[in-house]
């Protein structure tokens, strides 16, 4: 291993594959019989370390980002520029007393966060973090991801109901309604990418987006249905991970903290960890489907290792979520459901149709016509919707008369 290092093989190729090579080197040492187990452990352990670390970094990024948006510094007391703040939060979560309400159903109350975190981690097995750095190359990777994603609702309901408190029940009901109603558009927003790539496996989808014309990559984002698909996917992802305009389940100002109101200490921290892991997982899937996974945004930049591109895109999406959280007020429950079923879902279905249209229209020189047709088909409902809102006198800026 060391020999390999200082043999000057520091070409881009090796740097890119450094983790894979390290794994093979390690595997070469383990006795034959243990190898499958060892290979699994060597792949899983870094995942279990990297993403919780990313969770720690995101908490500090979020608080400093929100602070900067609000004309203040954000935490800068613990460590240089406040970078040790997540460590402080972690220790605090460990030390805090774990209060379990007397009326709570002990077993279910205990297992809810465990199920939540397990489900969140399972989603990472199919996500390609770098060139041939995917844990399991399932040929139905996306399907597996969504299947695991729906376990999260179960744990939310376990938490909400088992705490036997009014507010947590209200929060759980809201969370379930919201997650189910945004699961469908999330899947439908992913379907166009699968259609274009022709396979459910995440690695194939990334492969389908490889290659550059001139310096621009072939990401699915740069197609009309890709832009709309990515937009819908982001909205559904925000709702899926209970993030800001859709953070009704833990609407602080109304029902205080939703389903995890009766949790404290480390279980409360586990809920937060699982929520952030869920956010990373769905945005990672969004990167895989629309932003070309680990491929470099411009052709001449591809000497930088693939996993660095993956994490920069992930951090960009995280900043987008923080930015949204700092600005937008919360939607009400019925509006949220109406928005999901009456706007996002039809758009997603239309988007699937447009992908099909895109697939069979001639590419080649007539590409611009194809672009125009698809863009028109997708833009039409938005314009119709905003006109109808105007006729129904909703969401109008009002003029006020003044009395002397």
């Amino acid at each position, binding site marked *: 291993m060391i020999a390999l290092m200082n043999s000057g093989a520091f070409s881009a190729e090796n740097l890119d594959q450094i983790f894979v090579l390290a794994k093979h080197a390690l595997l070469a040492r383990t006795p034959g019989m243990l190898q499958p187990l060892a290979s699994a452990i060597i792949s899983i352990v870094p995942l279990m370390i990297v993403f919780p670390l990313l969770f720690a970094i995101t908490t500090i990024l979020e608080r400093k980002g929100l602070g900067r948006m609000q004309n203040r510094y954000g935490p800068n007391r613990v460590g240089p520029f406040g970078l040790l703040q997540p460590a402080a939060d972690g220790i605090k979560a460990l030390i805090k007393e774990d209060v379990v309400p007397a009326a709570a159903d002990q077993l279910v109350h205990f297992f809810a966060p465990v199920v939540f975190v397990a489900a969140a981690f399972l989603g990472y097995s199919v996500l390609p973090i770098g060139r041939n750095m995917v844990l399991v190359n399932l040929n139905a990777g996306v399907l597996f991801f969504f299947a695991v994603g729906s376990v999260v609702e179960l744990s939310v309901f376990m938490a909400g109901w088992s705490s036997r408190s009014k507010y947590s029940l209200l929060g759980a009901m809201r969370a379930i309604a919201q997650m189910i109603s945004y699961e469908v558009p999330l899947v439908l927003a992913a379907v166009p990418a699968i259609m274009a790539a022709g396979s459910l496996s995440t690695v194939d989808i990334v492969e389908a987006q490889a290659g550059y014309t001139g310096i621009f990559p072939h990401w699915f984002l740069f197609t009309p249905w890709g832009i709309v698909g990515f937009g819908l996917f982001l909205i559904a992802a925000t709702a899926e991970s209970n993030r800001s305009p859709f953070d009704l389940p833990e609407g602080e*100002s109304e029902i205080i903290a939703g389903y995890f109101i009766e949790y404290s200490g480390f279980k409360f921290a586990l809920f937060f960890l699982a929520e952030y892991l869920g956010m990373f997982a769905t945005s990672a899937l969004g990167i895989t489907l629309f932003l070309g996974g680990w491929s470099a945004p411009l052709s001449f930049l591809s000497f930088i290792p693939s996993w660095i591109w993956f994490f920069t895109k992930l951090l960009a999406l995280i900043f987008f979520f923080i930015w949204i959280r*700092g*600005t937008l*007020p*919360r939607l009400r429950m019925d*509006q949220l459901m109406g928005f999901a079923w009456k706007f996002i879902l039809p758009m997603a279905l239309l988007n699937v149709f447009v992908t099909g249209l895109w697939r069979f229209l001639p590419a080649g020189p007539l590409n611009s016509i194809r672009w125009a047709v698809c863009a028109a088909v997708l833009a039409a409902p938005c314009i119709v919707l905003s006109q109808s809102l105007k006729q129904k006198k909703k969401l109008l800026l009002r003029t*006020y008369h003044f009395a002397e």
Partner: protein
Amino acid sequence: MSTLTLPTPLTTSPEPGHEERLLEVSMGPQHPSTHGVFRMNVVLDGERVVRLKPVFGYLHRNHEKIAENETYLGSMPYTDRLDYICSLTNNWGYALAVEQLAGITVPERAEYLRVITAELTRLLNHACLLGFLLQDMGASGTPLMYAFREREKILDLFEALTGARMMCNYMRFGGCRVDTPAGWLDQARKVVADFPKFLDEFEKLLVSNEILMERTQGVGVLSRELAIASAISGPMARASGLNYDIRKVDNYGIYSRFSFRVPLGSHGDVYDRYMIRFLEMRESLKILNEALRDIPAGPIIDPKSKPRGFRPKPGEHYGRIEAPKGELGFYLISDGSPNPYRYRVRPPSLINLTVLEDLCLGHNVADVVVILGSVDIVLGEVDR
């Protein structure tokens, strides 16, 4: 002869067969968005409010009984604690009532200082309220921090003038306690000059925001007749179209010299109350610019007046001003002794809360919080 239009709280739920599933939730007194220790007994059918009974008294200190055992001057610092966000307008209300009771005149410069400090307090209160209203809706802190940034500038002005940021105790019967220190008026002009920048920033940030419009338009509608019947005052009444601004009705102080207009809403919902306060801030800026431009020199209190031994002649008087939250009235009965015989504060917040149940029936929990935010209550004034 319209009979009593009480809201008909449904003890049974609208959909048959839901009765046993009514959920009685008590929101408050420790609730993040009740603006103080205020409790609401809310009966929910699912998410919809079926019955709502406010509960008061958690901050009741019987301010009126204390005032009966204090001299007139002794009660002045207590008026800061009524509506603790706008202490200067409370002072002015009390001073005005006592001056009208005892027939004291106020010199010119003091009148200008009173208008300036009152309008600055109105800016401060409306900016805070818009920040709280959006905080209740979930915009996590950003609008509130912008509002508080502006509020800090105004509070520094108050500290430089009266010595305290919130507990100013600045007005005396017949004028003000202390004159403006050097450079205060220029600093005030600078704060007023770059306040519109904050208003534009706020307008861009939130006024045309679709989510906000969706959450507030058509929510908690208050009809003009109910507003008059329940003596609703302040921006909440003007949002329902009731043209009743006490600065224009009573013309107290020197408000008749300033050209400002009174914005009126037409729908009377939360969005209108929110926008009326927004437009009122722009009107207050006009008053402030005029007042700061032509404030005369001169005494701020008639020099012969002594701080102690103030005994108004027997009689009674109800004086009122347009506080940022509504009509703040002081009813004083004097029997010639240094202590008032009866001292009554007419709290705009408490009376504006009379219609809270009417506004909230039929809406759901998230709206109750937003409607309560738009009523703009402060518990120091509600419970006295």
